[in-house]
């Protein structure tokens, strides 16, 4: 919280002590998290720690079983999911996917594609894109939608080291251009400590014993750099 501005603006989203349960098992519990405008915040944790669940709860895609989530009034959210398989029976090109949920002027689409470095690809079917290209395409889509809060679920998964670096630079560019809050799900604690304004650590399978959540890196036993 060292980067918190002196005049504390209202957070875009404030998560207080939330828990999500599947049957008797808590997927996440006692999670606290807040994102301010212009901040880059990470959700860090190992496999099965409930990172995606946490992100989906913040987006309002799943119901929480305890705690509270407060969103700024008329908050526009953007989402880049971890994996998105477009069914091969659906003919969808790069540019058509960008305008899937709303129409934008061609000039704006070109600019957004250029920001993520896809301007030279033309308009190929999305099924021919590589994993990294597809992630950047989803990023371009959100760039056009201009959300207040952008949630990215492991954006660099399946992308090589150089590609991941470029991707994170692009995310940072988008954050500055849109002046939005960005919440990134990752297992890369070092990245979070180097680039993030704040982060929240989830520890798997310990939610029943103790509040295994905190901003204290010492709590992290299972998050790994891989």
């Amino acid at each position, binding site marked *: 919280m060292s980067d918190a501005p002196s005049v504390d603006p209202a957070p875009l989203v404030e998560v207080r002590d939330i828990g999500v349960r599947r049957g008797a098992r808590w997927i996440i519990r006692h999670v606290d998290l807040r994102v301010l405008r212009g901040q880059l915040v990470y959700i860090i944790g190992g496999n099965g720690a409930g990172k995606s669940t946490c992100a*989906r709860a913040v*987006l*309002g*895609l799943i119901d929480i079983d305890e705690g509270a989530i407060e969103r700024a009034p008329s908050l526009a*959210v*953007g*989402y880049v*999911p971890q994996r*998105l398989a*477009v*069914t091969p*029976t*659906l*003919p*969808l*090109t790069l540019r*058509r*996917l960008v305008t*899937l*949920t*709303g129409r934008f002027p061609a000039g704006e689409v070109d600019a957004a594609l250029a920001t993520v470095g896809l301007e030279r690809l033309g308009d190929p*079917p999305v099924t021919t894109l590589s994993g990294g290209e597809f992630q950047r395409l989803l990023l371009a889509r959100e760039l056009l*939608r201009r959300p207040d809060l952008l949630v990215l679920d492991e954006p660099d998964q399946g992308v090589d080291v150089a590609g991941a670096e470029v991707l994170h630079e692009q995310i940072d560019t988008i954050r500055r251009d849109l002046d939005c809050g960005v919440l990134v799900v990752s297992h890369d604690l070092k990245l979070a400590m180097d680039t993030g304004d704040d982060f929240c650590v989830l520890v798997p399978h310990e939610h029943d014993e103790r509040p295994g959540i905190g901003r204290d890196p010492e709590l992290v036993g299972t998050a790994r750099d891989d």
Partner: protein
Amino acid sequence: MLDDFLMRALLAGLGLALVTGPAGCFVVWRRMAYFGETIAHSALLGVALAILSDLHLAVGVFATASVVVVVLFLLERRDTLPTDTLLGLLAHGGLALGLVTLSFFPNMRLDLQALLFGDILAVSRVDLALIWGGGGVALGLLAWLWRPLLAATVSEDLANVAGLRPERARLLFGLLVAAVIAVAIKIVGVLLIVALLVIPAATVRRFASSPEEMVTAAAVAGMASVAGGLFASATWDTPSGPSIVVTALALFVVTRLRRPGRAAKAG
């Protein structure tokens, strides 16, 4: 012109294909073929109810099909059973319930042959009005639902985040398919209706480079199948419903014989 039964059959079939083509694309994209079968199976119960309450066949079928759609929608949200299991339950539950209901009325006259395979040559002016009127409403609904439904087909999460209410789109599309099947049973029957939804869409997939192109092309392919099937039926005296499906199948096979081209050609 409408006095000619063959002309009425042609108009009915063309009107139907105009809707089953586009709707069928979503059925293919969303992997809902078995959903269509389920609706068709449950139609027998609807037919029984329609005869008992002296309603138009399509109205009875649409009523029971709507119930099936809503029940499935609710079960999918609450239940942990997989969708195909739920569909199997509803399909054969509905069929059995229909047969048992009919057995209570041994004097009821029911043309099972027409029900299973359709009787397009017996299409009346009322049927024709129902097909074109209902078809227009169905196409309007599909156009209105287009963006949310397409977004939900790619990803329910993305549609949700964009505020497009994918669940509502899914429910409304289910009801739309129920309506299409209710009207179509008269034309091709319970056993063949899903073919009119799936085959044109599958045929034109490789020629389309956008969802809009594919929907248009599927409508054209469906209408060509209807025209060709009716012509064949009149020429060789074959049953009309199955002839339409065979023509659609032939169109699919013929377009498969050619190697897929890079360029997209609609129609």
